């Protein structure tokens, strides 16, 4: 009797996996925004989950990413990222901000299935959010100060390492 009890969940699980493999059969394409966002990962890590000294993008708020990208887009400062930002349109910056703000903070790409489910909502989201942007412009200064603090902390950590 005992062995039977142990087998049952295993069988059910097997059946579940089998059915899953039938449902998720054909290969799915990744949404264009995810492919575009992958162009950031040479420096900012997969799905923005940076493992270098460059900024993590995953789990940042939409406003933080959008405001910072737009600031760099408009800036005349001769800095590397200020130039990179100019390679994208405002709509693309919105789409990227939406995408990265939806990525989990600690993990990278948790599940490709999750990503495909997000596919349709992503483009809608980016349109929704664009209307909120103006309200958040006055928050910019606060955010900047926060960033400076963070940078200082990082610098100290670097010194400790060396």
């Amino acid at each position, binding site marked *: 009797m005992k062995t039977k009890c142990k087998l049952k969940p295993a069988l059910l699980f097997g059946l579940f996996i089998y059915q899953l493999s039938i449902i998720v059969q054909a290969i799915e394409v990744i949404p264009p925004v995810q492919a575009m966002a992958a162009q950031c990962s040479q420096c900012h890590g997969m799905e923005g*989950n940076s493992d270098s000294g460059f900024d993590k993008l995953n789990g940042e708020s939409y406003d933080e990413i959008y405001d910072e990208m737009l600031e760099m887009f408009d800036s005349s400062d001769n800095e590397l990222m200020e130039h990179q930002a100019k390679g994208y349109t405002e709509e693309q910056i919105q789409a990227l901000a939406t995408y990265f703000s939806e990525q989990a903070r600690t993990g990278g790409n948790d599940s490709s*299935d999750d990503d495909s489910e997000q596919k349709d909502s992503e483009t809608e989201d980016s349109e929704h959010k664009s209307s909120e942007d103006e309200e958040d412009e006055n928050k910019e200064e606060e955010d900047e100060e926060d960033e400076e603090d963070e940078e200082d902390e990082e610098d100290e950590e670097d010194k400790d390492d060396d």
Partner: protein
Amino acid sequence: MPKINRRNFIKLSSATAALTATPSIIRAQEASSFEARVIVVGGGFAGATAAKYLRLWGQGKIHVTLVDKNPNHVSCVLSNLILNDRLQIDDITLPYTPLEDNYGVIVEQGLVTSVTGSSVKTVELNGGTKTLTCDYVVLAPGIEFIDIPGLKDENGNNFDTIPHAWISGERTNSGQGQTQTELLREQLHAMPNNGNGVFVMTVPQSPYRCPPGPYERACVVADYLKNNKGGGTVYVLDPHADITIERETFKSAFEGLYADIIIYVPNAELIEVKASSRTAITSEGTFSGDVLNVIPTHKAGKIVETLGLTVGNWAPVDVRSYESTISDKSGFYIIGDSNNSGQPKSGHMANAQAKVCADAIIRTIASKSSSTNLVNDANRLANLKTNSACYSPITYDEASWLSAVFAYDTTKNAMTLVSESFGSSNEPHWSNDNFEDMFEWSRSLFSNTFR
């Protein structure tokens, strides 16, 4: 001594972030239900990224094999820092095992010698010691050098005495010896200590791998001679009329910082090499040195030419997918330095192109069960981007940077430079901050490509 992020940089080799984040379904290739098989030829920045992203984005439905003649990749990115001992060769040696462990890429060591068949392709390794079959072939073999009289002879080549150090991991003594980069380092370090040493180097004809690279090397070598050999002379023999990239930066380094060491010779087309006397004969005169570093002009990797995928020196591709545009060559994709897409030939850019290619192959597979061509989806093309960012060491602890973003242009069916995205460091042209950032950049790029 100025601080360097090398320790941080080395730490990345044990990074396991990617592993924990990868769903188990793509870590192993179960033979259950593959929709397609892809063979990636060449495991540099282009090939490794393509193999990784085909697995990462392919939901475990694509069987991916990466074939490289070497058991690991020695990066050209950062390789000039071997010359002045800022890094050791192990620091830029990138194993393929994380691609196997984290994404289930099958790695085969061998040299691809032929590919036959059309819809199903047979890939032959080492002249037939092994054959593999697949539906799509991604070619990422990097570059091949164009012969120069005197550099090659009937017994092979003279790269064992005249190093190019431009395919950094290529080994001397028919593949048995040290790497090209280590050989050049050895020759540089053996130069005279009295300030009278002469280092002669040639710049390849555009387009070549790593546009700032030759000028960067001249700076690293000049800095080394200045600090360790009581000075010396570096001849930079350039076939171009002027410095081709980061002009203000390198002009300022050549004419300012290294004015007493670097002699820049424009319009100097290399005609012949005398290997025994380390002499370069150019259209602007004859130059001999203690070290002769000839970086010959490039063409597409050998296998690309062998398979009839080139027109002139490079492979023409459709930048929406990087598939060959030669009529009977569907299913062949050429990414990285071997194609003629007009984008810079760099490791960062190779990684960028590989992601576009991987996405396109997945869309090609998905298009089979769809009534539309998903590769040419309007929303995809409107958001099709690649980018390049890089740093060049100028002194022992300072570097410059360069930025460029490319966007798809529907009317030209080409990737075109977004002009405002193009820029390089100035005021100052080089700094220690940039030098620090260089290691963050390379750490991230290596990780995104090989882990």
